């Protein structure tokens, strides 16, 4: 974003960056930046809070009064919430399938409700929603010792497939939240720490590493800190 700020200003546009990383903004010195210490992925801080978003925008727009490069800091910090969001999950239905596969099938109705209400889904980079259980079956097999070279993943690209699975879960999960609206990383914590799919994904990732699969093949299947 700081790079684009420089490019745009050189072309004659006036810009302000709502920066999420202070050290990067300091090093790159964009013409106008408002550092916002908010959850990564939420540059305006709080979803469904128009007043807060307006205040952030107002602080950013105020920087157009400056006559020279300026880096300001928004006065309020919004922390991510790493406590797993609380969802009503489907009960185990078919004990003959892997737990993650069964769970994913059980979430289909919630996923469909989310799609109907939003009209759009992030699932579909490599697989569609109907293929999520089959992809989880392969991750389950990898996690239990199958060779990634021999047992092929539907959609092939591990990173894209893992995005699709996580999107499927997070979109379904936001339909099933029983507690407060999830803060930054609450859905991530829910997925990786409480769902069978998340645990299977991490186990498959560890198995690929163990099998010496190429680094980009497994590393980006989950957040770096996991």
């Amino acid at each position, binding site marked *: *974003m700081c*790079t*684009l*700020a420089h*490019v*745009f*200003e*050189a*072309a004659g*546009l*006036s*810009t*302000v*960056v*709502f*920066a*999420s*990383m202070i*050290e*990067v903004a300091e090093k*790159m*010195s*964009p*013409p106008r930046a408002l550092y916002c210490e908010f*959850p*990564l*992925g*939420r*540059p*305006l801080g*709080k*979803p*469904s809070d*128009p007043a807060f*978003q*307006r205040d952030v*925008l107002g602080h950013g*727009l105020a920087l*157009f009064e400056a006559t020279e*490069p300026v880096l300001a800091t928004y006065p309020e910090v919004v*922390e*991510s919430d790493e406590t797993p969001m609380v969802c009503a999950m489907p009960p185990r239905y078919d004990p003959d399938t892997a737990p993650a596969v069964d769970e994913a099938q059980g979430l289909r109705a919630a996923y469909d409700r989310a799609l109907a209400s*939003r009209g*759009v*889904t*992030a699932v579909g*980079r490599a697989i569609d929603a109907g293929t999520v259980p089959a992809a989880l079956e392969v991750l389950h097999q990898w996690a239990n010792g199958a060779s990634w070279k021999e047992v092929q993943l539907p959609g092939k*690209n591990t990173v894209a497939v*893992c*995005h699709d699975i996580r999107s499927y879960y*997070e*979109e379904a*999960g*936001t339909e099933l939240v029983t507690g407060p*609206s999830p803060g*930054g990383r609450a859905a*991530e914590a829910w997925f990786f720490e409480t769902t069978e799919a998340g645990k299977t994904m991490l186990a498959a990732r560890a198995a690929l590493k163990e099998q010496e699969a190429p680094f980009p093949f497994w590393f*980006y299947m989950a957040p*770096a*800190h996991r």
Partner: protein
Amino acid sequence: MKMSADASMRAFAATMPVPEFESPAFTPLGKPLSQARVAIVTSAALHRSDQERFSQDDTGFRALDRNDRQLVMGHWSPNFDHTGFQIDLNVVYPIDRLEELAAEGVIGDVAQRHFAFAGNQPDTVSEIRLDTGPACAAELIADAVDVVLLTPV
């Protein structure tokens, strides 16, 4: 105390090399904000479902119409929250807030087109710097945009 995931991402980013800009430009806004046309450019890899998806090493951009609301976040990094955007796209792409600011006369006008890049880029960002960034700037200038709000993901 264990460092939060966001804090560790920020600490990691702080160690990454960044491109340097000698004698950076500074373009003063030559008119009051109340007369300025404003566009959003985000690095959240947003696109409509009828547009080409962002590939893993995509250095290009997608144009979003002022009226588009059904958008997909096609970013390839697994390291940040996606649910905020699912709940309310304005937390990434504050288009409804811009419409309000224009209706109240705080800004002059909302641009007809806004643009999305993917934030996951090679360290040199040379393509964005030399090719797609200037191309996007030309589109913004063709739309008579004065002010660009940059929202990173």
